[in-house]
Protein backbone atom coordinates (compact mmCIF):
# COMPACT_ATOMS: atom_id res chain seq x y z
CA UNK A 1 0.00 0.00 0.00
CA UNK A 2 2.73 2.45 0.96
CA UNK A 3 4.66 1.47 -2.15
CA UNK A 4 1.64 2.30 -4.34
CA UNK A 5 1.21 5.75 -2.79
CA UNK A 6 4.94 6.42 -3.13
CA UNK A 7 4.87 5.26 -6.77
CA UNK A 8 1.98 7.54 -7.73
CA UNK A 9 3.49 10.58 -6.01
CA UNK A 10 6.92 9.96 -7.54
CA UNK A 11 5.46 9.27 -10.99
CA UNK A 12 3.39 12.47 -10.95
CA UNK A 13 6.31 14.62 -9.76
CA UNK A 14 8.70 12.95 -12.20
CA UNK A 15 6.46 13.45 -15.23
CA UNK A 16 5.81 17.08 -14.22
CA UNK A 17 9.56 17.69 -13.86
CA UNK A 18 10.25 16.04 -17.23
CA UNK A 19 7.60 18.21 -18.89
CA UNK A 20 9.18 21.26 -17.25
CA UNK A 21 12.55 20.28 -18.77
CA UNK A 22 11.18 20.50 -22.30
CA UNK A 23 8.62 23.29 -21.80
CA UNK A 24 10.34 25.90 -19.61
CA UNK A 25 11.85 28.89 -21.39
CA UNK A 26 14.66 29.35 -18.87
CA UNK A 27 17.54 26.91 -19.48
CA UNK A 28 18.73 27.06 -15.87
CA UNK A 29 15.28 26.24 -14.47
CA UNK A 30 15.05 23.38 -16.99
CA UNK A 31 18.34 22.01 -15.62
CA UNK A 32 17.03 22.25 -12.05
CA UNK A 33 13.84 20.39 -12.96
CA UNK A 34 16.02 17.75 -14.62
CA UNK A 35 17.71 17.30 -11.22
CA UNK A 36 14.26 16.91 -9.62
CA UNK A 37 13.38 14.31 -12.26
CA UNK A 38 16.59 12.38 -11.49
CA UNK A 39 15.70 12.43 -7.78
CA UNK A 40 12.22 11.01 -8.44
CA UNK A 41 13.79 8.28 -10.61
CA UNK A 42 15.96 7.37 -7.60
CA UNK A 43 12.76 7.13 -5.54
CA UNK A 44 11.20 4.91 -8.23
CA UNK A 45 14.23 2.59 -7.91
CA UNK A 46 13.59 2.37 -4.16
CA UNK A 47 9.96 1.36 -4.79
CA UNK A 48 11.36 -1.36 -7.09
CA UNK A 49 13.62 -2.50 -4.18
CA UNK A 50 16.79 -1.59 -6.09
CA UNK A 51 18.52 0.16 -3.20
CA UNK A 52 22.06 0.10 -4.64
CA UNK A 53 20.87 1.62 -7.92
CA UNK A 54 19.03 4.38 -6.06
CA UNK A 55 22.26 5.33 -4.29
CA UNK A 56 24.22 5.18 -7.55
CA UNK A 57 21.54 7.29 -9.29
CA UNK A 58 21.85 9.99 -6.64
CA UNK A 59 25.66 9.91 -6.71
CA UNK A 60 26.12 9.93 -10.49
CA UNK A 61 23.08 11.74 -11.90
CA UNK A 62 22.11 14.14 -9.12
CA UNK A 63 25.68 14.65 -7.98
CA UNK A 64 27.88 14.59 -11.07
CA UNK A 65 25.92 14.86 -14.32
CA UNK A 66 23.71 17.72 -13.13
CA UNK A 67 26.81 19.65 -12.01
CA UNK A 68 28.38 19.09 -15.46
CA UNK A 69 25.22 20.30 -17.22
CA UNK A 70 24.91 23.40 -15.01
CA UNK A 71 28.61 24.14 -15.56
CA UNK A 72 28.10 23.93 -19.33
CA UNK A 73 25.09 26.27 -19.12
CA UNK A 74 27.21 28.77 -17.17
CA UNK A 75 30.10 28.49 -19.65
CA UNK A 76 28.05 29.01 -22.80
CA UNK A 77 26.03 32.11 -21.85
CA UNK A 78 23.16 30.78 -23.93
CA UNK A 79 20.89 31.41 -20.93
CA UNK A 80 19.78 34.82 -22.19
CA UNK A 81 18.40 33.32 -25.39
CA UNK A 82 16.26 30.81 -23.49
CA UNK A 83 15.19 27.47 -24.87
CA UNK A 84 13.35 28.10 -28.15
CA UNK A 85 11.82 25.39 -30.32
CA UNK A 86 12.77 24.80 -33.93
CA UNK A 87 10.47 24.40 -36.94
CA UNK A 88 9.93 20.71 -36.15
CA UNK A 89 7.84 21.41 -33.04
CA UNK A 90 4.52 20.01 -34.33
CA UNK A 91 6.00 16.99 -36.21
CA UNK A 92 8.10 16.19 -33.13
CA UNK A 93 4.99 16.33 -30.94
CA UNK A 94 3.13 14.02 -33.33
CA UNK A 95 6.07 11.58 -33.45
CA UNK A 96 6.31 11.53 -29.64
CA UNK A 97 2.56 10.94 -29.21
CA UNK A 98 2.53 8.20 -31.88
CA UNK A 99 5.53 6.54 -30.21
CA UNK A 100 3.84 6.71 -26.80
CA UNK A 101 0.60 5.29 -28.19
CA UNK A 102 2.39 2.46 -29.96
CA UNK A 103 4.48 1.49 -26.95
CA UNK A 104 1.56 1.63 -24.50
CA UNK A 105 -0.61 -0.42 -26.89
CA UNK A 106 2.14 -3.03 -27.29
CA UNK A 107 2.93 -3.36 -23.60
CA UNK A 108 -0.70 -3.57 -22.52
CA UNK A 109 -1.34 -6.37 -25.03
CA UNK A 110 1.72 -8.44 -24.11
CA UNK A 111 1.22 -11.27 -21.57
CA UNK A 112 4.23 -10.62 -19.32
CA UNK A 113 5.43 -13.70 -17.42
CA UNK A 114 5.33 -11.89 -14.09
CA UNK A 115 6.97 -13.88 -11.30
CA UNK A 116 5.43 -13.89 -7.83
CA UNK A 117 8.75 -14.42 -6.04
CA UNK A 118 9.55 -11.54 -3.65
CA UNK A 119 12.64 -9.56 -4.74
CA UNK A 120 16.06 -9.85 -3.15
CA UNK A 121 16.26 -7.33 -0.38
CA UNK A 122 19.75 -6.01 0.06
CA UNK A 123 20.81 -6.09 -3.59
CA UNK A 124 24.39 -4.87 -3.17
CA UNK A 125 26.06 -8.28 -2.41
CA UNK A 126 24.17 -9.95 -5.27
CA UNK A 127 25.17 -7.21 -7.74
CA UNK A 128 28.78 -7.43 -6.58
CA UNK A 129 28.69 -11.18 -7.13
CA UNK A 130 27.27 -10.72 -10.62
CA UNK A 131 29.79 -8.03 -11.55
CA UNK A 132 32.96 -9.60 -10.19
CA UNK A 133 32.13 -13.27 -9.61
CA UNK A 134 32.63 -16.39 -11.71
CA UNK A 135 30.70 -16.36 -14.99
CA UNK A 136 29.53 -12.81 -14.36
CA UNK A 137 30.11 -9.52 -16.13
CA UNK A 138 33.83 -9.18 -15.44
CA UNK A 139 34.75 -8.41 -19.08
CA UNK A 140 32.34 -5.43 -19.40
CA UNK A 141 33.56 -4.25 -15.99
CA UNK A 142 37.09 -4.25 -17.40
CA UNK A 143 36.02 -2.45 -20.58
CA UNK A 144 34.07 0.31 -18.77
CA UNK A 145 37.23 1.99 -17.31
CA UNK A 146 38.79 1.98 -20.80
CA UNK A 147 35.71 3.81 -22.10
CA UNK A 148 35.89 6.26 -19.20
CA UNK A 149 39.60 6.88 -19.83
CA UNK A 150 38.97 7.49 -23.53
CA UNK A 151 36.14 9.89 -22.66
CA UNK A 152 38.30 11.82 -20.18
CA UNK A 153 41.11 12.18 -22.71
CA UNK A 154 38.66 13.11 -25.46
CA UNK A 155 36.97 15.77 -23.33
CA UNK A 156 40.35 17.27 -22.36
CA UNK A 157 41.52 17.36 -25.99
CA UNK A 158 38.24 18.92 -27.15
CA UNK A 159 38.12 21.80 -24.68
CA UNK A 160 41.88 22.54 -24.46
CA UNK A 161 42.99 26.05 -25.39
CA UNK A 162 45.00 25.98 -28.61
Amino acid sequence: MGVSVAFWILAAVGVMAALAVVLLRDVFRAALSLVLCFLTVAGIYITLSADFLAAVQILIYVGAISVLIILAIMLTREVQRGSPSNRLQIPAFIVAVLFLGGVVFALLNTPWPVSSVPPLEPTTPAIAGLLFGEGGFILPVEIAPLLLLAAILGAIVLVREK
Partner: protein
Amino acid sequence: MVGLEHYLILSAVLFSIGLYGALAKRNAIIILMSIELMLNAVNIAMVAFSRYIVPLLLTGQVFVIFIMVVAAVEVAVGLAIIIAIYRHRETIDVTKINLMKW
Protein backbone atom coordinates in the same frame (compact mmCIF):
# COMPACT_ATOMS: atom_id res chain seq x y z
CA MET B 1 -1.59 -2.43 -6.43
CA VAL B 2 1.20 -1.16 -8.64
CA GLY B 3 2.37 -3.69 -11.22
CA LEU B 4 4.83 -4.04 -14.05
CA GLU B 5 2.59 -2.18 -16.52
CA HIS B 6 2.53 0.96 -14.37
CA TYR B 7 6.31 1.19 -14.38
CA LEU B 8 6.49 0.50 -18.12
CA ILE B 9 3.90 3.19 -18.89
CA LEU B 10 5.80 5.68 -16.70
CA SER B 11 8.96 4.75 -18.59
CA ALA B 12 7.24 5.21 -21.96
CA VAL B 13 5.86 8.62 -20.92
CA LEU B 14 9.29 9.84 -19.79
CA PHE B 15 10.88 8.48 -22.99
CA SER B 16 8.31 10.29 -25.17
CA ILE B 17 8.87 13.57 -23.35
CA GLY B 18 12.60 13.16 -23.90
CA LEU B 19 12.04 12.28 -27.57
CA TYR B 20 9.97 15.43 -28.08
CA GLY B 21 12.65 17.55 -26.40
CA ALA B 22 15.46 16.00 -28.44
CA LEU B 23 13.61 16.58 -31.72
CA ALA B 24 12.04 20.00 -31.14
CA LYS B 25 14.59 22.06 -29.19
CA ARG B 26 17.27 24.35 -30.58
CA ASN B 27 19.55 24.69 -27.56
CA ALA B 28 22.15 21.89 -27.71
CA ILE B 29 22.30 21.59 -23.90
CA ILE B 30 18.53 21.08 -23.71
CA ILE B 31 18.86 18.35 -26.35
CA LEU B 32 21.53 16.64 -24.24
CA MET B 33 19.26 16.92 -21.17
CA SER B 34 16.42 15.31 -23.14
CA ILE B 35 18.71 12.43 -24.10
CA GLU B 36 19.51 11.95 -20.41
CA LEU B 37 15.77 11.83 -19.74
CA MET B 38 15.37 9.08 -22.35
CA LEU B 39 18.24 7.08 -20.83
CA ASN B 40 16.60 7.34 -17.40
CA ALA B 41 13.31 6.12 -18.85
CA VAL B 42 15.06 3.07 -20.29
CA ASN B 43 16.70 2.43 -16.91
CA ILE B 44 13.30 2.44 -15.19
CA ALA B 45 12.04 -0.14 -17.69
CA MET B 46 15.15 -2.30 -17.13
CA VAL B 47 14.79 -2.25 -13.33
CA ALA B 48 11.05 -2.94 -13.57
CA PHE B 49 11.63 -5.98 -15.80
CA SER B 50 14.35 -7.19 -13.45
CA ARG B 51 12.08 -6.77 -10.42
CA TYR B 52 8.93 -8.35 -11.83
CA ILE B 53 10.10 -11.02 -14.29
CA VAL B 54 13.39 -12.38 -12.87
CA PRO B 55 13.40 -11.08 -9.26
CA LEU B 56 16.35 -13.24 -8.18
CA LEU B 57 18.73 -12.72 -11.12
CA LEU B 58 19.27 -8.89 -11.05
CA THR B 59 20.61 -8.90 -14.63
CA GLY B 60 18.57 -5.80 -15.47
CA GLN B 61 20.16 -3.91 -12.60
CA VAL B 62 23.65 -4.80 -13.87
CA PHE B 63 22.65 -3.52 -17.33
CA VAL B 64 21.48 -0.28 -15.69
CA ILE B 65 24.91 0.16 -14.12
CA PHE B 66 26.57 -0.11 -17.55
CA ILE B 67 24.00 2.27 -19.08
CA MET B 68 24.89 4.77 -16.34
CA VAL B 69 28.60 4.46 -17.22
CA VAL B 70 27.88 5.10 -20.89
CA ALA B 71 25.53 7.99 -20.03
CA ALA B 72 28.21 9.67 -17.92
CA VAL B 73 30.73 9.28 -20.75
CA GLU B 74 28.22 10.63 -23.26
CA VAL B 75 27.49 13.70 -21.14
CA ALA B 76 31.19 14.46 -20.62
CA VAL B 77 32.08 14.19 -24.31
CA GLY B 78 28.87 15.88 -25.47
CA LEU B 79 29.33 18.89 -23.23
CA ALA B 80 33.00 19.13 -24.28
CA ILE B 81 31.88 19.21 -27.94
CA ILE B 82 29.24 21.86 -27.13
CA ILE B 83 31.81 24.04 -25.36
CA ALA B 84 34.28 23.63 -28.26
CA ILE B 85 31.56 24.66 -30.75
CA TYR B 86 30.63 27.63 -28.58
CA ARG B 87 34.28 28.78 -28.58
CA HIS B 88 34.44 28.74 -32.36
CA ARG B 89 31.00 29.98 -33.34
CA GLU B 90 29.63 31.88 -30.28
CA THR B 91 26.38 29.92 -30.43
CA ILE B 92 25.02 26.49 -29.52
CA ASP B 93 21.81 26.85 -31.55
CA VAL B 94 21.74 23.55 -33.44
CA THR B 95 19.85 25.09 -36.39
CA LYS B 96 22.89 27.32 -37.00
CA ILE B 97 25.52 24.60 -36.61
CA ASN B 98 25.46 23.22 -40.16
CA LEU B 99 29.19 22.88 -40.72
CA MET B 100 28.91 19.34 -42.10
CA LYS B 101 25.87 20.02 -44.28
CA TRP B 102 26.44 20.36 -48.02
